[in-house]
């Protein structure tokens, strides 16, 4: 059984169709990139899975349980965590408090201290700045904090929306290093929106190429670079 399955998902904003009945499934522990031009529906897809945008129709399942229709916080409680686009950290709270926020819903109180220690080990800069207001961190540090915070909810599936947005390439490398390291360590299932297919190919994993609210290609990220599909997705006739 797949970890996460999306069936005939459609999202509309008024008359505008953001997602037009798309389906795909993700296996446990898989890393899936979602790529495509602006307006392809990448962020809408993540938002619909996380519950922050309501689907017009279709079904989303995690471990066979239906997620569609639940509130974002209820979905987070089931073990699906989202790192929102644009590093939406809690700027006025300290780094440590940001991490604690993600733990409010957990039952395993005893393991929280260990997890914070694990996050500080994975992101030493966060340990160094533990008592600083999160708003004072640099862009890359904020992105790492957003990822660490999402992981503090102890998720099984994590959605990351454009982790490279507005960051220097070197910082993006570091963010991906940490992200993939943590994924391997914890056996996470991960879906990442990434504009740069070259980046996705370098990091490695499966890639879904979107355009006009549909998935137009699905395969190994490394294979995409060599194919004409990308050019078609970005420059071709409207799908």
């Amino acid at each position, binding site marked *: 059984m797949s970890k996460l399955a999306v069936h005939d998902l459609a999202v509309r904003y008024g008359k505008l169709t953001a997602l037009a009945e798309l389906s795909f499934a993700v296996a446990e522990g898989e890393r899936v990139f979602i790529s495509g031009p602006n307006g392809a529906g990448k962020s809408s897809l993540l938002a619909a899975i996380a519950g922050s945008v309501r689907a017009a129709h279709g079904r989303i399942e995690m471990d066979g349980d239906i997620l569609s229709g639940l509130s974002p*916080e209820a979905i987070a409680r089931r073990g699906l965590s989202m790192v*929102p686009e644009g590093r*939406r950290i809690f700027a006025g709270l300290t780094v440590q408090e940001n991490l604690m*926020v*993600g733990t409010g819903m957990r039952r395993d109180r005893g393991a929280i201290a260990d997890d914070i220690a694990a996050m500080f080990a994975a992101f030493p800069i966060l340990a160094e700045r533990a*008592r600083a207001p999160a708003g004072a961190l640099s862009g890359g540090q904020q992105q790492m904090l957003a990822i660490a915070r999402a992981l*503090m909810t102890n998720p099984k599936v994590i959605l990351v929306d454009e982790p490279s947005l507005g960051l220097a390439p070197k910082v993006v490398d570091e963010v991906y290093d940490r992200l993939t390291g943590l994924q391997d360590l914890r056996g996470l299932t991960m879906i990442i929106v990434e504009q740069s297919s070259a980046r996705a190919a370098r990091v490695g994993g499966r890639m879904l190429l979107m355009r006009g609210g549909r998935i137009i290609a699905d395969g190994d990220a490394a294979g995409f670079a060599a194919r004409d599909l990308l050019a078609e997705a970005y420059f071709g006739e409207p799908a």
Partner: protein
Amino acid sequence: MLRQHGIRRRMAATTPLILAVLLLAFVIAVSLTHDRALARMAAETLIRVTLVVGFWIFVGNSGVVSFGHAAFACLGAYVSAWTTLKPAMKATLLPGLPDWLAAAEWPVAAAAVAGGGVAALVALATGAAILRLSGIAASIATFAFLAMVNTIWSNWTPMTGGTSSVVGLERYVTPWAALAWAVVALAVAAAYGASASGLALRATREDEVAAAASGIDRYRHRLLAYTLSAFFCGVGGALTGHFIGVINPDSFYLSLTFLMLAMLVVGGIGSLSGAVAGVMALSLAVELLVRMEKGVTLGVTTFALPPGSQEIIIAVAMILVLIFRPAGLLAGREIMLPARWVGGRADRTTDPTS
């Protein structure tokens, strides 16, 4: 690092303690002067501490400005009047009270708790509707709630005496009685701020989307804070009634709402210390201005401010703070003891056994 977190928590726990000690020192200093006017000012200030600290529990943590908390003070004041006034007095002033209430002669402390409790219950019921709204809509709804309570209280004559005052409340509120409640309010507010719910609520204040993605049910935490907050505003209202001895619905309406908001804004909405600092600063200012409105004699001339200047000057002070120090006097910081006083180092500890 975890040890560091523990120290941080212990440091945070010193905040209400320091604030309580400062208020205690204030009361002791005032009672040493044996000046009755000063003692009244101190009691009034400490009642406002209870009101504004209660107010802060909701507004400070949720970031949602409420205009409705004076209504909770109104409820608390009337509940306390209902349960403590002499039955003979109630028979003439409030003929519509049910028999059990008309006969009630509760101890004043129990009446204050009941006043807070009723305010909290009303907050729970009305908050269930209001707090589902987003920020500004919720604020406007709290204002509507304030207007509703005022209208009902002004017209429900058999129960409330309508717009005429209810008189004869036992005037038991000394600076010490007010201090006791202020300290309880501080302790509860600090405990709530340090709780998981307090942190979750502050997270929703910072970013609603990210908070939901972290599994936070904003509505539930808001409702808890709103209820707790209303309790202390209800108690503050009861204390106000028993301080002046006379209550009417308009003493818990727009001017109280304005004063509570001004105190929170001036001190700084972002911290408990800010709430207390705002009360102290504005209470002193109000006291000075009231005296100046009465007239200050300098040699042979008497100088007096025109009546009403007090409100205008407070409003100007609030505007100036908003312009030049938008986060308030304390800018969201808490007063706390340095780390080394609570058994730790201020710097980052790398002790692997921690």
